């Protein structure tokens, strides 16, 4: 809000008094429903009772008229009859709906401010092929403009992942709130990102396309390198474990790269594989079986075709293809719109994600809604951006639905959360009432009345 105040001051300095009053009135009208606006952008903690609201819990039945009580950053109570403690700030949500904050399980938000032409603002891909120790949480910029711009639409949590090489690094699950990375972190080091080797014609920017047999060879070689790397890490882990038990053995030299892989080869944390086509997805599943990994697919254009293999190994899919064109001319026009509905029919666990690098993560609700226009039920569409990503990311105990005891990441809207015309009226992250301002509202305020 600091910037907003400055703006007002600036405007008032140059505008006649009457205009100033007008601007102030307008501003106050615009933000009347966000008393968070009186605070800085980090919002305001407190005890809040959202009353007379339609509560879409997602995990259970929708409560048509009830109260959500927020205390100490958590959802303290939900129900038709909730006793509101004295001193709680009451928010009359008559005609409004409360939803859990949405979760985008595959973004690069905070790692890339301006992707084209401003390299200095981009931290998404480390150099080299194997970077298991690179951690997104050490580069996500809490002060990126994308943070506010994304959350004011109701997306409160994202997975942010690095993209380079074969092993890109480790992704972070963060709330879109916090002055520091630690404040943002939900799971600071969540999973390992592996760009699963595939046959690619693309030979690098400005390079000629690769010939088929060469592309196959390269894929096989990269896959072999990946296997080797995992074996190496397993060896490293064995040596370390042995030393822990028997200190008379030679002390192993710490290798940060291999060290980073240990929780993954031990199946403690999930490995996120980017893969789109059926054969690649089946390749991922084979790799998961070979190495006894916990796996997640990111991308998943044709995941529904490999549903059998994915289900057998409990591999969920974060689907990032709603805004992509079908690859082949002969694909039905709705091929990629329809995929989520096919995944649902096949009984696959999936989430819908923008896969965006930051500016357009706010498209998440519309992307989920589009899947519902093409076969997915509205209920499933909502879950695919709330409860399902929470389950896939292993944070369903804290996020993804409105249940007592969960973190109070909540969105209060004047309509269906997935509809593009719906307005967010209140936003809570970690139980804090967050002002609905962003770089965009600030610029709007600066220029909307320029004559």
């Amino acid at each position, binding site marked *: 809000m600091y910037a907003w105040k400055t703006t007002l001051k600036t405007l008032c300095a140059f505008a006649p008094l009457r205009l100033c009053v007008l601007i102030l009135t307008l501003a106050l009208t615009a933000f009347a429903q966000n008393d968070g606006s009186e605070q800085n952008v980090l919002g305001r903690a407190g005890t809040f009772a959202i009353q007379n609201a339609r509560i879409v819990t997602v995990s259970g039945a929708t409560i048509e008229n009830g109260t959500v009580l927020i205390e100490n950053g958590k959802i303290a109570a939900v129900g038709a009859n909730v006793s509101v403690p004295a001193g709680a700030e009451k928010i009359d949500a008559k005609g409004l709906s409360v939803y859990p904050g949405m979760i985008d399980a595959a973004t690069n938000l905070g790692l890339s401010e*301006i*992707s*084209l*032409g*401003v390299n200095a603002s981009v931290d998404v891909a480390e150099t080299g092929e194997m970077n298991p120790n690179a951690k997104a949480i050490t580069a996500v910029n809490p002060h990126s*403009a*994308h943070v506010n711009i994304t959350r004011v639409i109701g997306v409160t949590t994202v997975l942010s992942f690095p993209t380079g090489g074969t092993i890109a690094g480790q992704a972070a699950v963060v709330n879109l709130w916090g002055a520091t990375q630690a404040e943002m972190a939900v799971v600071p080091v969540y999973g390992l990102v592996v760009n699963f080797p*595939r*046959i*690619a*014609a693309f030979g690098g920017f400005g390079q000629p*396309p*690769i*010939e*088929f*047999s060469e*592309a196959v060879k390269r894929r096989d070689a990269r896959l072999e390198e990946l296997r080797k790397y995992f074996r190496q890490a397993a060896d490293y882990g064995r040596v370390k474990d042995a030393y822990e038990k028997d200190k008379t053995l030679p002390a192993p030299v710490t290798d940060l790269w291999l060290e980073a892989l240990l929780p993954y080869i031990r199946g403690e944390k999930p490995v996120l594989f980017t893969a*789109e*086509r059926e054969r690649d997805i089946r390749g991922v599943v084979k790799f998961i079986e070979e190495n006894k990994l916990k796996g997640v697919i990111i991308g998943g*254009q044709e995941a529904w075709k490999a549903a059998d293999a994915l289900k057998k190994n409990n591999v969920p899919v974060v689907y990032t293809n709603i*805004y*992509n*064109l*079908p*690859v*082949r*001319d*002969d694909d*039905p*026009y*709705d091929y990629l719109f329809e995929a989520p509905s096919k995944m649902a029919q096949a009984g696959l666990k999936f989430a819908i994600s923008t896969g965006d690098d*930051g*500016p*357009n993560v*706010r498209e998440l*609700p*519309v992307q989920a*809604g*589009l899947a*519902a*226009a*093409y076969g997915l039920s*509205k209920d499933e569409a909502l879950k695919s951006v709330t409860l399902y990503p929470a389950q896939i990311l292993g944070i369903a105990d804290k996020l993804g639905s409105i249940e007592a005891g969960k973190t109070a990441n909540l969105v209060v809207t004047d309509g269906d959360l*997935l*509809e*593009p*015309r*719906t*307005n967010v009226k209140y936003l809570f992250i970690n139980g804090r009432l967050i002002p609905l301002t962003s*770089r*965009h*509202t600030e*610029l*709007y305020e600066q*220029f*909307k009345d*320029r*004559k």
Partner: protein
Amino acid sequence: MKRVVCFLLILVSGLLSPAFLLGQDKREVLIRNATVLTAAKGVLENTDILIQNGKIAKIGKNLKAAAGAEVIDATGKFVSPGIIDCHSHSMLDAINEGTFAVTSMTNMRDVLNPKDIAIYRALAGGVTTANLLHGSANAIGGLNTVVKFKWGKPVEDFPIPDAPPGIKFALGENPKRTHFPALPNQSPRYPRTRMGVMETIRDAFVRARDYKKSWDDYRAGKTRIPPRKDLELEPLVEILEGKRLVHSHGYRADELLNLLLIADEFGFRVATLQHGLEAYKIAPEIAKRGTGVSIFSDYWGYKLEAYDSIPYNAAILWKAGVVVSINSDSDERMRRLNLDAAKVEKYGGVPEEEALKMITLNAAKQLGIDKRTGSIEVGKDADLVVWNAHPFSVYARPELTMIEGEVYFDRSKDIERRAALEKERQELEKLDVNKSNNTTAPRLPSEKRQAERDDAEYH
């Protein structure tokens, strides 16, 4: 085989018979009982639309159609005007002539590809009309073509014959080749700065003015040798004479305004500022000149000059009295312009019908085709979309898209046809010519399809 030919002959002669042709002339379609979003005169509930000869003949309740008319029951459905995309590079076999800073000699009409699958996919998103533009590699680019997406028809049926001609200009990062550094064996192309972009444009118009004078002199008998007919300068003369619409790509407020000032200097009006991501900063200056703005509703931030873009752009411009349209510049985005328009309601409170106009009537106005299309009014072309829900709902999808009364997309038929296509494929694959003789490598698989846009990866 012979029998089939005979049958075809009979069929063809039947089609050519006067009776059939007469039928064609009086071809009637009746859409019944729809919620009609006219994009001009509000929303009409339980309303019928009668189409004759490709035009909207009547709008009202309980309309009667001639016997044999095609009747479409739209009970519970919504009908909107066909969507008009004011900035597209679909169905083009080439987009940029990047060698010169001025390429007004090129014409997109020459490189149309009526088989581009993007056309069909756009129809399936409710788009019926598009402004096909040259890329943005040049301060002054090539000539545009405004088409209707008559998928399956010969290419000459696509361009709208009475659409005023136009041309692409471009400002900022792209024409100064920010993302295309000169190769080691090339000297960099002028211009490399926004200063140079403006001078390139000014110089072109000075040359055009001299060129026009040389023809005036020749026609007045002052000179004997006919001047060279210069394809680069002819369109610029047309701009000076107010006969050609300028559609200029640009982002930053200062460069947009500087173009308007050059236009003032040479006495023409810029028809549209394309993208205009910072147009909201100079809304009054734009409004004063009657220039339209064609924008993304909320796409932003992909490069430095797109960093000050805000989704309130449309609202601010609209309130200032600017004719605003929302475009895609992308084969992908084109399929969901209805949702882009819906967002305009949220960001700044543009009323529903005004938001709908931004993907229909306003684009038609900007392209000078609003007399024939862009809204549902009697006498206009029957370019219509039947939706299963309100087109501003995320759950909406086009069920039927028609142009001039003819259906070009029908979701139920599309789904029906899929099995037949698969069967056809199997039959064709059995043919000798379609079996491999193993002389070349297998085809590489692909997993991403790049939407056609300016300069491949940005606008």
